């Protein structure tokens, strides 16, 4: 009787097998989300209230202080709604990605997941897969609904370029979230970095006011803030109807940020996971 051993699969087969597991995560989180109906409803009510608030604030704002996109000067609500949508996307995605693994640890399922033949990268991706699909959909739906309800003058041809900018922006937020997940795994309760990062990114993004109102030195820094690039690109597409040319520039600027963020994020997360195994504290919360 010879000793049983473990055979290694080919790299391609491993990738295929790992990808095939993502729908299981999606189904799991969909069932869980549907079991919290009230939370789903209140989230949308909150968004609606925020929009109404900006509608009235917008009535006080002189449109001449707002930047022009494609030669047309939009109203404040049109300007702010894109900021609300993308800023909300960042806050939500950053929090969900960062706390996804933490929640598994708290619920006690992290070790059960790690005992399955699933790569830690797949577990990380799977844990936020639902949110990575739901949050952009929610953002797009929010823009469409506010445009319809408040009669906002968005260029229909701008939706696809705007969505593409958002998709390229996702890995940047995801990378930040994964890095923060690694920090949370290490320092346990709230490294607080996700909230701080979301606040700083949003403050210097021009989401709610034009960047030109900032002190010039801060404006210079804010111009290279990936969130500001994404918001500006989406506004140019939706408000100015600039099409793919400006969107392409925004995408070219965002792509390096997205790549570096994702690589560094997963590197930090891997380090944290190895440290937890070494210390034997993976199950502690």
């Amino acid at each position, binding site marked *: *009787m*010879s*000793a*049983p*051993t*473990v*055979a*290694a*699969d080919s790299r391609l087969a*491993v990738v295929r*097998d790992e990808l*095939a*597991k993502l*729908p*299981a*995560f999606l*189904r*799991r989180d969909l*069932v*869980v989300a549907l*079991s*919290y109906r009230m939370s789903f409803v209140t989230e949308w009510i909150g968004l609606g209230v925020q929009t109404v608030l900006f509608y009235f604030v917008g009535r006080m704002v002189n449109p001449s202080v707002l930047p022009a996109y494609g030669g047309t000067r939009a109203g404040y609500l049109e300007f702010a709604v894109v900021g609300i949508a993308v800023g909300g996307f960042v806050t939500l995605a950053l929090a969900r990605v960062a706390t996804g693994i933490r929640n598994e640890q708290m*619920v*006690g*399922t992290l*070790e*059960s*997941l*790690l*005992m*399955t*033949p*699933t*790569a830690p990268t797949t577990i990380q991706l799977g844990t936020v897969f639902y949110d990575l699909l739901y949050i952009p959909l929610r953002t797009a739906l929010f823009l469409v609904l506010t445009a319809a309800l408040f009669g906002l003058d968005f260029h229909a041809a701008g939706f696809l370029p705007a969505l593409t900018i958002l998709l390229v922006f996702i890995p940047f937020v995801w990378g930040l979230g994964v890095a923060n997940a690694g920090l949370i795994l290490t320092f346990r309760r709230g490294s607080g970095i996700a909230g701080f990062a979301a606040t700083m990114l949003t403050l210097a993004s021009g989401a709610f006011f034009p960047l030109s109102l900032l002190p010039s030195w801060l404006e210079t820094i804010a111009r290279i803030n990936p969130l500001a690039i994404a918001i500006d690109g989406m506004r140019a597409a939706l408000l100015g109807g600039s099409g793919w040319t400006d969107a392409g520039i925004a995408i070219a600027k965002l792509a390096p940020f997205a790549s570096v963020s994702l690589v560094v994020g997963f590197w930090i997360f891997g380090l944290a996971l190895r440290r937890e*195994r*070494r210390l*034997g504290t*993976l*199950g502690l919360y």
Partner: protein
Amino acid sequence: MASPAPIIVRDDAPAAPLPSRPTVIDADGVSRRFRRRLALDRVSLAVAAGEIHAILGRNGAGKTTLLRILAGLTAPTEGRVTVLGQDATSASRALRGRIGLLPSGDRSFYLRLSGLENLLFFARLNGLRKRDALERAHQVLASVGLDHAAEQRVGEYSHGMQKRLSVARAFLTEPDVLLVDEATHDLDPHAALVVHDLVRGAAERGAAVIWATQRVDEIRGFVDRVSLLREGELCFTGSVAAFAAHALVKRHLLTLRNGRPGVAVSEAMARRALGDFGSIAAAADGEPGHFLLRLADDAVLGDALAHLAAADLKVLACREERSDIETAFLELTGRA
């Protein structure tokens, strides 16, 4: 009289697996330190394919730490662990697919999902295709008697049901290594028997099983070999019979009757009659005439009983207070 020093047989009982079967789990000099506390101290253990190996030990003896190291969830501070020919600390994807872990806690499921949804999820993560996963999930739920609660949320399960679900999850695949931590804790006798049968079946298919438990009574007739951990040290490895041989039965339940009609046996009377052979006190059941005899280390039961009889106390019944395995456990852990 001072109690005897606990018996340490680590050196003269090499942790060799059952002969003629290949070794699947091989731990060599494994130590694990958590800050200043040494949870495991140079533990060496080998478990063969098809073997059920019990790890006994009191709370905090290091059983769970050992299992977590074998599962690749915790790295040892020192030593080497090989599972299925691979370094367990690598926790490779392929290796994890061959190990089934039954954790001791019940915090390992999604409480808002049903038992079936949970198993489907873990089956998919174990690489089963959707249809196979569904079929297998139903099979294992039925095997642990949870088919009636398949659609019920796990949050509504009792501890025992969650434990059974945990057992079901471990059997979603047919693991070559099964690491079981306190599996029958919280289970009724029937459910415990079902779990024993499932584990025995896995071993018969060739799985190497490590069964960590505090319930010493369940190992007889179930496990092939046993190891005992005491404060992180392996102080015994061998067969169940060899383990039971360490039992030094010192406590007996006696039923006494006074030779003089109409006079009850009192504790003071029994103590005087026993003399230096040990101590005697009324038994916990409170029945008249029932006494618990605790023999002194160098005393012999026959002599003690003869002494009682000589004082006109008739011994109507005498039985050991515990099973020999439980006694061995207490002797070896220094708690007799």
